[in-house]
């Protein structure tokens, strides 16, 4: 007897719960989608986002702390001299390795390296993923 009651209870429950579920999806069909049309619409990136770094070469004192703290040694720094007179030849970050952990920015005594809002990293070759910040700064200065 109980099995028979369960049998009918299941059928009624199935119809009832399926109807409720259909209501949920129908409600959503007429509400506004939440997704963005990505390349056309860009998401709003908040302040303090941990994206690709920005580097201020004139502030850098070549203290090497960021290179030391980096867990994966993806920063290459080449320089002459020390302190404020240091001449920086190379400051490369290899984004195929970078963890985006923000440790390099926190350790910097002069706040010369920050993490920016750029997150688009697609490139055709591996070499393009290594961004030479010092060179970019030099080119900017020349212009």
């Amino acid at each position, binding site marked *: 007897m109980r099995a028979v009651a369960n049998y009918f209870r299941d059928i009624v429950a199935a119809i009832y719960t399926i109807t409720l579920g*259909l209501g949920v999806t*129908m409600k*959503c*069909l007429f509400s506004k*989608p939440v997704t963005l049309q990505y390349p056309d619409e860009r998401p709003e990136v908040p302040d303090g986002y941990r994206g690709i770094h920005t580097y201020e070469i004139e502030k850098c004192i070549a203290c090497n702390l960021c290179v030391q703290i980096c867990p994966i040694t993806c920063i290459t720094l080449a320089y002459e001299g020390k302190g404020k007179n240091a001449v920086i030849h190379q400051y490369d970050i290899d984004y195929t390795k970078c963890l985006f952990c923000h440790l390099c920015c926190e350790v910097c005594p002069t706040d010369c390296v920050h993490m920016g809002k750029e997150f688009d990293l697609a490139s055709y070759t591996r070499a393009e993923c290594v961004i030479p910040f010092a060179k970019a700064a030099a080119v900017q200065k020349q212009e």
Partner: protein
Amino acid sequence: MQSYIDALIQNIGILQQVPPLIIYTAAILLGCAVVFGYISVVAMIMIYAERKVAGHMQSRYGPMRVGPHGILQSVADSIKLLLKEDTVPDKAHRFLFKLAPLLVFAGAFVPFAVLPFSEHLVISRMNIGIFYILSLAAIEVIGVIMAGWASGSKWSLYGGMRLAAQMVSYEIPMALAVLTVVAFSGHLGLHEITHAQGKWPWEWFASPLKSPFTAVGFVVFYIAGLASTKRLPFDLPEAESELVAGFHTEYSGMRFAYFFIGEYTAMYVVCAATAVLFLGGWNGPFPGVVNMLGKTFFLLFVMIWLRWTLPRLRIDQVIFVCLKVLLPISLICVIGAALQAVLF
């Protein structure tokens, strides 16, 4: 259809010089081409509609890139499928592997011979129309088992076997549900069944006012239709999370497109048959074709709606629903409908 051709021959002088056999063959081929074109267009529209409805039901947009609001997405997809490399796996049985998609497609294609679009717009007024549709749907089963076995992949084999079990069992309640209608119309032809129903919803077989038994039969037929077209909650043959893609895992390019179009065509056929049998076919307040297409597309929308809401059943539950729920209900309906038809 033959009467139209005969009238055409009589009215146009030149055609009388040509042997009738050639004209008939040409007419058949032309009909096939028209139906094929219609199927392709309908399948494309349905695929687009499905993706769009699914998108909005899930708080996203669906296709948006190709054309305004992505309306050309299906065209782009079909071009992609046509141009794709057609691979045959090493372990596959080559002949059967290539034959299977054609069989599946053919099984979905042939019912169009009897499906009416309106009172006069029909290829053949066969007097056993619904029987013809039900029996030809069985060809698809052979095609799918063939695809599953010939692929030489274990997951494909599972998909094929599941579908065989599922479709063979669901044909029984489906046929019984049809019998409830036949008890009232007294005829197996789709025209006669449609004529047995009136213009307004309460005169259709789906309405409990006309007969409670056909109303239940409508639900049974539709559920069985879902199962035979492998739609959720009965999409076990291609259960994505279990069997990867079921019987068409190994297919690519045009052969995959055959399965794809075949599936959507089968959906269309089931919905059109439901509309004719239970929803009064072309009867209704609008011109015949509009009524018929409106009902068919409404049923198709419900199929899509169900798919994007429900989880999938397990194989033993699928068979349980068929043999222990739908079958007794449809048997009761057949007996009830027969009694009602005789007594009232």
